[in-house]
């Protein structure tokens, strides 16, 4: 009860818990808990004070401008390429991690990358396949319907919205294009009548 100084009573005592739960209290002593994430000098597993040898840089590796230099070791998956690569390189060159623009540009580049690669895949022997790559067939093999309904899942309540949210921007765009085209085609005859008068 927060209205009085006493702690609410627990339904089980420590002894009862110790009997019921394997290992209860094994790490009760806070001083003895290993690896508590506080500053802990001298715990490094390497040679102290040693700067690692440098991994060769095979292409101009993009890096955060918050770093003094390229870190001695880095990943080499997926070098930047195309328009998405240009966006990424610009974002790394221009903005620190503190700037929303940095992350938004990178996210934007991710969407561009997906489209670039998607289109490129049609020039290969293995075009993208929305059925095999999204794994939707598991809806049939993994109880898609019975996993979702009658289970009190919170996400199912607003799942009906998803098609609208996903398709919505496309539909809006289509409506916009349609109205612009219609306006353009209407305004032309109108101008002609003006001229005729």
């Amino acid at each position, binding site marked *: 009860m927060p209205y009085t100084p006493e702690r609410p009573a627990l339904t089980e005592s420590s002894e009862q818990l110790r009997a019921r739960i394997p*290992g209860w209290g094994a790490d009760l002593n806070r001083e003895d808990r290993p690896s508590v994430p506080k500053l802990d000098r001298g715990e490094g597993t390497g040679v102290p004070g040693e700067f*690692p040898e440098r*991994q060769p840089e095979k292409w101009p590796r993009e890096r955060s401008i918050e770093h003094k230099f390229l*870190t001695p070791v880095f990943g080499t998956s*997926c070098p930047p390429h195309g328009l998405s690569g240009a966006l990424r390189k610009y974002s790394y060159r221009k903005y620190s991690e503190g700037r929303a623009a940095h992350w938004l540009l990178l996210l934007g580049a991710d969407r561009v990358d997906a489209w670039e690669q998607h289109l490129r895949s049609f020039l290969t022997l293995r075009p993208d396949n929305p059925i095999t790559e999204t794994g939707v067939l598991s809806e049939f093999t993994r109880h898609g319907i019975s996993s979702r309904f009658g289970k009190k899942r919170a996400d199912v309540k607003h799942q009906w919205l998803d098609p609208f949210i996903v398709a919505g921007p496309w539909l809006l765009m289509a409506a916009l294009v349609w109205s612009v085209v219609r306006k353009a085609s209407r305004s032309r005859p109108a101008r002609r009548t003006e001229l005729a008068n």
Partner: protein
Amino acid sequence: MVYRGPYKVRVEEKDMPVIEHPGDAIVRVELASICGSDLHLYHGMMPDTRVGMTFGHEFIGVVEEVGPGVRNLQRGDRVMVPFNIFCGTCWFCARGLYANCHNVNPNATAVGGIYGYSHTCGGYDGGQAEFVRVPFADVGPVVIPNWMDEEDAVMLTDALATGYFGAQLGDIVENDVVVVFGAGPVGLYAAKSAWLMGAGRVIVIDHLEYRLEKARAFAHAETYNFAEYDDIVVHMKKVTDHLGADVAIDAVGAEADGNFIQHVTAAKLKLQGGSPVALNWAIDSVRKGGTVSVMGAYGPMFSAVKFGDAMNKGLTLRMNQCHVKRQWPRLFEHIRAGYLKPSEIITHRIPLEHIAEGYHMFSAKLDGCIKPLVVPNAG
């Protein structure tokens, strides 16, 4: 596996990874797993996730090749690899903050290096593959003890270590009331670990009945399905005599599926760096002066966190990625003593060829899926 864009992955032949630094090793993967945080990548929420990247930061395998600088490992060793990539010598590693290593991620200073976790985490390919490059092989990997089950070992590379870490961050004292948001693998392990640290009551909140069932059976927890309550925060106050919990653990991270607005702005439109609904519930449900522990994954994008409430309530907020390797000695002891059997939460074993179905099933929470393993060369 490679990423092909949001909600799309496929299996592709890629070039064999090579030694790029004298401290590297190449590991042939025996067992990997899909993690809840992989779903942020899969859903296209994590900035700089590039098409063609291989995911997977939880894996064990056999050393295939070592670089000239590697002393402690040799070809043929069976190793478990912590998800953090770290050098062991920088300012942060020297202080045990392996997750915050400064020498492995050129793409950002705010986050360390992680296998298969976008370029924001260093651009390393991950372990949902046949082979993987392991940098600083003398520092991260550990030879799997003979007595340890391989499925337990793969759980130690992230989920179990992170769950235990979440409970540690809560700084639990005897009889504390601990509430865990999220009954995924990390939440289940956090709930279990809270008992080891002497909690007097452990409550788990989720909306998936099969996961809550696991929380009761595996983690001996008291459980509530938030979908059954108008306002889970009010319910939490009621069941804690209106005091609130002493410790709240956010084991959900971004993309929690809460109310309508959160579902739209975060989970779907991606206007926030993930939905902070679980974190906000944690802030609201903990008592004044309590501790909120966060080790659910959040990306670098901003989220609408209820900071004012945290301030006014005098909360202690503690968070980080788990420094996995520091947890191992104690967790090995607990597993040996029989206090923990991590592989009990594994529900599915998926051949690498079927990984697209695996991701869809895990993402859509079909078939009672809690933790899927990925088995290369299962054929």
